[in-house]
Each structure stands twice: as C-alpha cells, then as structure tokens.
C-alpha cells in the first residue's frame, strides 16, 4: 500500500496487529463512530457501507493480515472509501483531524475514491473494475517473483457487472499465478434501487465463484473471529480465494430504522445522537 510517512499523517504509531477479538470489535465500533461523525456534517452519505464493512476493515487492517509496506490493497467500490478513512485514522495511517473534511470541496478525502485517495493502491468509482486491476497486480508480482499478497475488496452489487466474471474466469485459468490474490466481498445485499434481491438474483454467490474455479468461503461478515479465520486461511492452495462476508447496512445497530435507505443514508440529528450513544455504549 501507499503508506504515508508517519510524521505527516499522524502523531499516532501504526498499530497493525491487535489480534484479540474484543479489540477488533472495538475497532469496528470506532470505524462506525468515525463514519457517523463524517456523515453527520452533511447529514447524508455512504454510512451504510461503513456500517456493513466495519468488521471487514477492522480485521483486515487491524488484525495484522496485511503488511502495509509490502501488500497491495484494491478498493473496487470507491464509495466504500469512507470505511478506509475511518480505519486508517484509527491505525495512524491518516491524520484523524482530516476526517472532518470528508466530502468537502477541495478535500483529499473525496466521498468516492479517486486517484488522489491516499493509502490504497487502486480505487475504482465505476463499479466492477477492481478485480481486473488486482489481477494485473498479482500477475506483476508473479512476473517479478515478489512474495506479496494482493487484497481486493469488492461489494456484492458490483457482481452484476460482467467484467467481474470475466476477471474471475481469467484468475482461475491463471491459477498458478494467483495464489496470493484474496478477494473479500461485502455482501450487504444493498444497491441503489433497494435490496439486491429486488433487482436481480446474484445467488448462489459462493457456488458461482466455486464454479468459476475459486476457493470460496461464505461467512457472517460481522463476526470478527470468523473473518480472522478466513483471512488466516489465505494461500492454502494455488487457487484464487474469495471470502463472501454476509453483512447488513445497519451494521446490526439497534437504532437504525428498518425503513432507512441503506445505500445512501440520510441521518438527522436525533439519529446521529442515537448512533453515537449506541456506539459509545458498545465501547464503554
């Protein structure tokens, strides 16, 4: 990853490994808290994505699975960058004071990732393109005989783009060079027009990936111990590896009303206060 120099990024040290489940759960709660505060400034944004992916980002970035200097990280759905900012601020990869500029005019922390986005090796705003780029990274590492992992974060909605399956087929065919490619899918079942199931049928997701020649696991994406076990299982064989993490845009927070638009959440001050209270309560 493109890890910034610490002095300019933060006065906090990079704390990559906090392996106990409780620390990771607390990191996930702090991701949600950061994201809530970032969204609250304008009252709307991609909060549901931060809520659904908080444990994924907490375990992947905070659990010591990624070597920030060596490994590459691809964020395919660029609007998830809010979760990246939120976790990066907790780990000393980003100045926490910068979070307040999220989505503001002129800010480097744009609401949908761009070439200016810090830390990531590749972020895509137009969906369905990240896996292909990650395969390019993995091929490059293989050609250069480098031992580094390529992590690609995808969302389930973008599985509707045919390019994802072109890429899945390619990676499987070139499996002898893809053993260090790991895909993590935030399967939160949400897209712009509503639940994915109201738009089309992506299921059975795990069987689809397996039929394309991938090793696939299908787990509860809010369970930090299951996520850690799945990440630990990378590189077991030479097949490309996909982790389907089942999540909810509510992040299973009690105060999120069931009627809320999970893709683009609007929160008023009452909901903001309730979210912060609930999240701080979980950290107490």
């Amino acid at each position: 990853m493109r890890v910034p120099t610490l002095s300019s990024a933060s006065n906090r040290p990079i704390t990559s490994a906090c392996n106990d489940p409780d620390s990771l759960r607390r990191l996930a709660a702090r991701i949600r808290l950061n994201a809530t505060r970032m969204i609250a400034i304008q009252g709307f944004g991609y909060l549901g994505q931060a809520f659904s992916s908080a444990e994924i980002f907490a375990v992947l970035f905070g659990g010591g699975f990624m070597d920030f200097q060596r490994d590459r990280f691809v964020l395919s759905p660029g609007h998830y960058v809010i979760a990246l900012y939120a976790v990066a601020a907790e780990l000393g990869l980003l100045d926490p004071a910068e979070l307040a500029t999220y989505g503001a005019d002129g800010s480097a922390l744009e609401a949908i990732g761009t070439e200016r986005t810090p830390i990531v090796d590749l972020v895509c705003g137009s969906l369905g393109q990240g896996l292909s780029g990650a395969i390019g990274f993995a091929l490059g590492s293989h050609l250069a005989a480098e031992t580094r992992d390529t992590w690609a974060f995808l969302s389930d909605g973008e599985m509707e783009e045919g390019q994802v399956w072109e890429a899945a087929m390619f990676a499987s065919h070139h499996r002898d060079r893809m053993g260090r490619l790991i895909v993590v899918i935030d399967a939160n079942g949400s897209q712009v027009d509503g639940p994915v199931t109201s738009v089309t049928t992506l299921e059975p997701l795990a069987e689809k990936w397996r039929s394309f020649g991938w090793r696939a696991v299908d787990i509860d994406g809010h369970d930090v111990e299951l996520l850690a076990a799945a990440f630990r299982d990378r590189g077991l064989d030479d097949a490309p590896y996909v982790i389907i993490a089942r999540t909810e845009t509510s992040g299973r927070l009690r105060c999120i009303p069931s009627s809320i638009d999970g893709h683009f959440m609007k929160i008023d001050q009452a909901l903001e206060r309730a979210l912060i209270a609930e999240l701080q309560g979980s950290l107490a």
Partner: protein
Amino acid sequence: MKPYGHALLALARQRKEVVCIGGDLTRQTETDLFRDEIPERFFNAGMAEANMIGIASGLARAGYIPFVNTFGVFCTRRCFDQIAMSVSYPGLNVKIVGFMPGLSSPGGPSHQAIEDVALMRALPNMTVIEPADAIETRQIVNAIADHPGPVYLRLKRGEIPLIFGDDHRFEIGRAQLLGPREDGEVLIVAAGMMIPAALAAARTLGENGVSAFVVNSPTIKPLDVETISSMAARSRIVIAAENHTIIGGLGSAVAEVMAEAAMSKPLRRVGIADRFAESGSREYLFHRYGLGTQDIIQAAWNGLGIGKPMPVAPVLEAAAGAYAPV
C-alpha cells in the same frame, strides 16, 4: 511482413518490462511472434476486453509496459469506461493497439472502427497515433514505449505499403511535409491509409494545373498545431482525409486548429460521412463511402470552385505486399 509484431518482439527482447496482452486475436494482431518467443510475458485475456484493459492497468501500476492488442472496434467501443477510468484518468503506461482501422475491414459495421479516433481523442492524457507505412510503424513502437502514458495506436492489418525511406523520422506530436512541393493551392492533411491516396491526388491535381502538397500527421493527438497551421497558411484550401467518420477525427482536429487561428479559407473533410458502412472489399468500400483519391480531388476541385472539368485519377497498381489507393 508483420512490421508491428516484429518491432514489438524486438522491443520486448530489450526491455523486460514490456508485456503483451491479447483478446483472442493473436495471429491477427501479429503478436503470435511475441507469444511464441516470450510466452511468460504474453497473456491472452480471451474475448473479455473490459477485463483485459483492467489487467493491463494493474500491470502498468506495477511498473510494466503492457501492449494490449485486438481489433480497433473491440478495444475502444467495448471497454470505453474501462479505458477512461482505469487507463486514461490515472495516465497509466498502457499502449492500446487497435487493428483494422475504418473501412479496411470487410466485416461490416461490427468490425469497422470508424469512430475509434474520436473516442480516444476525447480522453484526457491519451495520445492517438496512426502510421502510414511499415517504416513508421516500427519507429512508433519504440517511440511509444519511451513515452510515459497511455497511447492508442491504430494499425492496418495485412498489406502495408512502404512509403518512407530509412531516413524517415517519426516523432510523437510531429507532422511532416511529404511534398511533392512545399506550398500550393491545396494542402492535403492525412494519416494512415489515406496517405497513398493523398499523394496520388496531389499528383493528379498538380498535373492539371492545381498545385497541391501533402502533410502526414501520424499523431492525431496531440496534433502538430504549428506545422499544420503554418502549412495551411501556405494554401488556399485545406483537405483533411481520414479513414474514419468525419466527426471527431483528424478532420475535426484540423478544423479546430484552423478555426482557432481564425484562418479565412475553406476546409473540406474527406472521410465517412456520419454513417455506418457495410461488408465488402476495401476497394469497394473506399469507393462507396468516399475515401478514394477521386474524392480528395473532387473536394479540392469543388472547394476551389474550378469551372473546368475535373481530372480523373489514374488507377494505380499495388506494389508487392502493399495496397493501391482507391
């Protein structure tokens, strides 16, 4: 003959960072030469152009120089968003090579890249190049490898003429006077497959008392504004000739230069007149869709308002391995 395939292979022997990516058209894009000698740096993406562009972008970010090869229709129309977002916006060192320009394909509208230049020219950071012969093609392969950033290279497949001598020097962003004179009533600006027709038209016009001269503009973006505007200033009418729709390609680029320089002289665009074509031989299609030597002569003759009967271009024979202008 395969001038591109040999040049790419020679380049890859020298530079280990050159990789070759194809879309199930390996022999057709002359990259069987690369595949057979350097298989470890050759990747066949199959018929999956969107993924092919994305993989190229990842390899470029990792420090490689990917040459992506397929037909021009497939590597522009099919994956425009991928090129825009994964290659052009980040300004990555990816060379997109599209074969069978314009009506050089007998395969009908599905295989005829008639607006590929317009699409690629509109993308920020993108360089667009179309060579006219084998010598220029070889030089371009090396030049674009040395040029950091995305390039769209538009290449003729199969018969390639030899127009230039060994003293020809291609340089990105430079157009050059091809003669037969240094000024005249008619300036013809052309590139690629239209160069033989432009030269033939200039000759016929000259033999009939209308002096004409030709500028070769292999770099369509960035256009050589200085050369084209100074040459245009030495003429009474400018003809832009392209094997492409007249919207958004070389003719449009020349029009922009002339308009911004406030040149008060006519421009005529010879090209495909905003329509899709059909299947057919190159000769038939170039005749039918107005890409012939006679079409250039007619544009000049009518544009200058010459009253006497228009001369007729002689039918030319193709040299071995080349093609004759229609």
